[in-house]
């Protein structure tokens, strides 16, 4: 007598919930980099560079491509300060908190920055212009205090210079 077939339970792969443009960007990065030795960091950099952050929904695509668990990918994203899981504002402002900058007034500059931007570290301004991040040395310690706006370095910051930098940044797309 033939026994009734037992339906095989397939592992439930989460569906791809990324919007099509993000999905395409992630696919492109994976296609380019999944074969390089130690591919995960280059891939996360690639995704963050394309999208500004690493969307949680991209995690399983990356895990699938590298044949590792989602927990591993998530673990790496959360270990490194540079990787973010939330979208950012149009510009990211990195403010140096380290010793050389402290010796030239970084603590006061930090307080001023948080006050005029109305946000704390890892937050974005309401107008979507600026995300504020702490950084521990920018290698600009001979020109302290230092900040980096996106990839542009600024030295010997004063409150006045800071304010005009913010004003100029808010006006750019």
């Amino acid at each position, binding site marked *: 007598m033939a026994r009734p077939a037992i339906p095989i339970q397939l592992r439930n792969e989460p569906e791809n919930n990324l919007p099509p443009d993000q999905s395409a960007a992630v696919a492109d990065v994976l296609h380019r980099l999944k074969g390089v030795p130690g591919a*995960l960091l280059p891939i996360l950099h690639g995704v963050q560079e394309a999208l500004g952050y690493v969307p949680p929904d991209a995690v399983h695509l990356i895990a699938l491509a590298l044949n590792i668990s989602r927990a591993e990918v998530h673990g790496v994203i959360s270990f490194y300060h540079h990787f973010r899981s939330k979208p950012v504002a149009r510009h990211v402002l990195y403010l140096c908190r380290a010793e050389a900058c402290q010796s030239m007034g970084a603590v006061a500059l930090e307080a001023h920055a948080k006050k005029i931007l109305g946000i704390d570290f890892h937050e974005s301004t309401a107008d979507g212009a600026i995300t504020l991040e702490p950084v521990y040395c920018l*290698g600009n*310690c001979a020109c302290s205090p230092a900040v980096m706006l996106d990839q542009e370095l600024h030295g010997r910051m004063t409150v006045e210079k800071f304010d005009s930098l913010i004003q100029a940044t808010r006006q750019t797309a």
Partner: protein
Amino acid sequence: MSNTSTHIRVYVPRDASALSLGAEQTANAIAAEAIRLGADIQIVRNGARGLFWLEPMVEVETPEGRVAYGPVQASDIANLFAADFLHGGKHDLRLGLTEEIPYLKRQQRLTFARVGITDPVSVEDYVAHGGFRGLAAALKTSSADIVKQVTDSGLRGRGGAAFPAGIKWKTVFSAPAEQKYIVCNADEGDSGTYADRMIMEGDPLVLIEGMIIAGIAVGATQGYIYLRSEYPHAFRALNEAILAAKNAGYLGTGICGSEHDFELEVRLGAGAYICGEETSLLESLEGIRGQVRFKPPLPALKGLFGKPTVVNNVITLASVPIILDRGADFYRDFGMGRSRGTLPFQLAGNLKHAGLVECAFGLTLREILYDFGGGSATGKPIRAVQVGGPLGAYMPESQFDTPLDYEALAAVGAMLGHGGIVAFDDSVDMAQQARYAMEFCAIESCGKCTPCRIGSIRGVEVIDRIIAAQEHAKNVALLRDLCDTLLAGSLCALGGMVPFPVTSALNHFAEDFEPRALRAAS
């Protein structure tokens, strides 16, 4: 302006610090004004000379030598042209012949010989200034002899631990394996340091040459530069230089027509201080969380992807070409005691003349702070100096006569590390500095050891209680006890050395920890 076929060369740095003070705008203004006046110039984007209070520093090539002007803002350009600066004309910003500026003239630049002088990404310029001579010598020598020369030079790792480079190379050389790696530690996480950055932006080819020589010496055909993500300018310069070196036959298969192959790639870190620790760096290069590995096995035997690996700092590797070119004796003749050669000291923070000073080991801290540094930028007395990054001790004025070499600093409970020197004036609150050291450790701990992961958070809390004048004696004792636990119970130097800034602050600046009321009354 005359219509000669040889254009006047004008140098404007592409160094990130110079850019942070407006060098890009200065370069653009010079280009625009030259077009307007029909002046025939060629702008070269060099590295920085390391005299940062004079940046953006513009240099002009004249028959007498290069003449420097600085600091030059875009708004000064019309004026400089009017003063005929293209021919070294007089101007308030004129600094004279660059080579004669005392700050530079008093230095012994070996590793930094070309920084600020050449176009960093031009192989032609590099070769014209003595580049690739170390490699040429290495190609004529046996691997064992290259290792011997590096050993004989006395070169010790410049990343902090000061381990003899030759001994590390010999271990990798002697390890049989079909694949070995050269890894350059370009994580430069220590605050107050920027020498690696200046090499990578100002003379990346010397690092590339050093890595090729290391590859030939130990039999490695693949190199990685692990670069911190906070250095986008260095990333660009390195990649341009690697491409140029490849096109000129210095990288790839059969370098310079020899039987040696060497490939080189830059990999970006992701904002984790601990990834400067070599085993954590290797984990990160392998694409996983940068947690510190237990040693043994040594990375020299089981390093990247389990293969024998040389991990060296940027400055260590960039010092190799001159050793091969000029000989081990030449290099070893600089320095004192067991600290041979030169060290690029990085003067940072509250100093009038902050900048890069490459000199033989043995200068005193006071000479660095006052003869070179010119005292504090704010004009107030220098009260504390942190040497060697965030895990380095805070040194009080009574220790300023310590000579800067590895052993002499260790003898006073301090460390030289990567050579960063951060000065604070008398407005500094040392209890806050101690608190920050613990906070930094808490933020950057890789999480493997409990004393480091949890103890650092407790450390912040204890210092907060001391600052709030709660049970002073009891909490100070608790803090010292915690420091002992960190010292003894940490796998790596992050947890193991964070007690240095904390206890040095406590020992030398006890008054800052005393209850506020008492302090105000005294």
